[in-house]
């Protein structure tokens, strides 16, 4: 089914002859941007909240700016602030990070095929693979005449720009904001719910979607909100592995 296909990166010599590179980029940006609008709202807000949080702990605005740029993993950045205020323990910091971010492993496995053959920008796209960019890029539909790799690249980089700009604004001016933003963080939940429904309407079997919800809820109840992710991942992996034979039987025509 999915053998090694030859993918030709569109941004190399293979671009349609009459289309200049700039037009191709603008086309891709036009497709990418609308998908990132909810993230623009959510990340600017959460970024500012993160910047304010850092400011309140006494960190210079350079800290949220640099950390949001090099770490770019929301919850881990909040934890980093606590790590910096605690004892100097690099080994602990390293393993804690792996535990908190283990879900990225699943994103990578899910995107192995999607990110195939899109050239060097792939290495940045993996660097910037946050929850939201994963959710958008794995579900995005791109018109045939537009370079999908480039669209996914723009989704990734726009999302990071929103976050870094938000975090920096929060660090510098955050204490001036008086608008009541309580509840705005729900925009992220709404995004994930929408992508979940889109996926639900597209798929012909809901086994995997249901396993994802059920395993996560059960593990959340059993392990609590701080530690449920890794047990949930193990449960999802286990159930989907056991369900491989029956699931693959009915899938031949789908993929």
């Amino acid at each position: 089914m999915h053998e090694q296909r030859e993918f030709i990166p569109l941004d190399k010599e293979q671009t349609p002859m009459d289309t200049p590179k700039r037009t191709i980029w603008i086309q891709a940006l036009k497709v990418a941007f609308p998908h990132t609008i909810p993230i623009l709202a959510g990340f600017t807000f959460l970024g500012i909240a993160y910047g304010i949080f850092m400011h309140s702990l006494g960190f210079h605005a350079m800290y949220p700016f640099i950390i949001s740029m090099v770490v770019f993993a929301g919850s881990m950045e909040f934890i980093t602030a606590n790590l910096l205020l605690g004892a100097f323990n690099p080994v602990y910091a390293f393993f804690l990070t792996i535990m908190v971010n283990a879900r990225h492993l699943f994103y990578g496995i899910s995107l192995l095929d999607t990110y195939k053959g899109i050239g060097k920008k792939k290495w940045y796209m993996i660097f910037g693979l946050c929850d939201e960019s994963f959710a958008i890029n794995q579900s995005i539909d791109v018109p045939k005449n537009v370079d999908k790799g480039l669209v996914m690249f723009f989704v990734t980089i726009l999302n990071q720009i929103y976050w870094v700009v938000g975090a920096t604004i929060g660090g510098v001016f955050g204490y001036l904001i008086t608008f009541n933003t309580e509840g705005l963080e729900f925009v992220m939940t709404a995004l994930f719910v929408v992508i979940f429904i889109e996926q639900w309407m597209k798929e012909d079997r809901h086994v995997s979607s249901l396993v994802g919800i059920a395993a996560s809820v059960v593990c959340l109840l059993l392990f609590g909100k701080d530690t449920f992710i890794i047990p949930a991942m193990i449960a999802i992996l286990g159930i989907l592995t056991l369900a491989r034979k029956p699931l693959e039987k009915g899938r031949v025509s789908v993929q």
Partner: protein
Amino acid sequence: MTMSIGQQIIMIAMVVLGTMLTRYLPFLVFPQGKPTPKYIQYLGKVLPAAVIGLLVVYSLKDIHVFKGSHGIPELIGVAVVVLLHVWKKQMFLSIAGGTIIYMVLVQTIF
């Protein structure tokens, strides 16, 4: 802050290293030049749906069913998103609608 700048840089570098390990590892273990094992290909197809489910639960993990607002604003917010999306299928409308309702709920009623 008790750490020196050098120590802080090392701590941040460890967080970067840990994060990047979780992001790059699948792509390094299964490079695109080599055939990916069938089992991993299978996972690549079935995992996304499950992971989005995980993300939905993850984004709602701070709800306390027995305390405070009992998760009612979240329940209403999610219901609005689902209904709007099934009805109109406009991503931005569903997200904006659900979020605005949620904000009104937590700022005024709950």
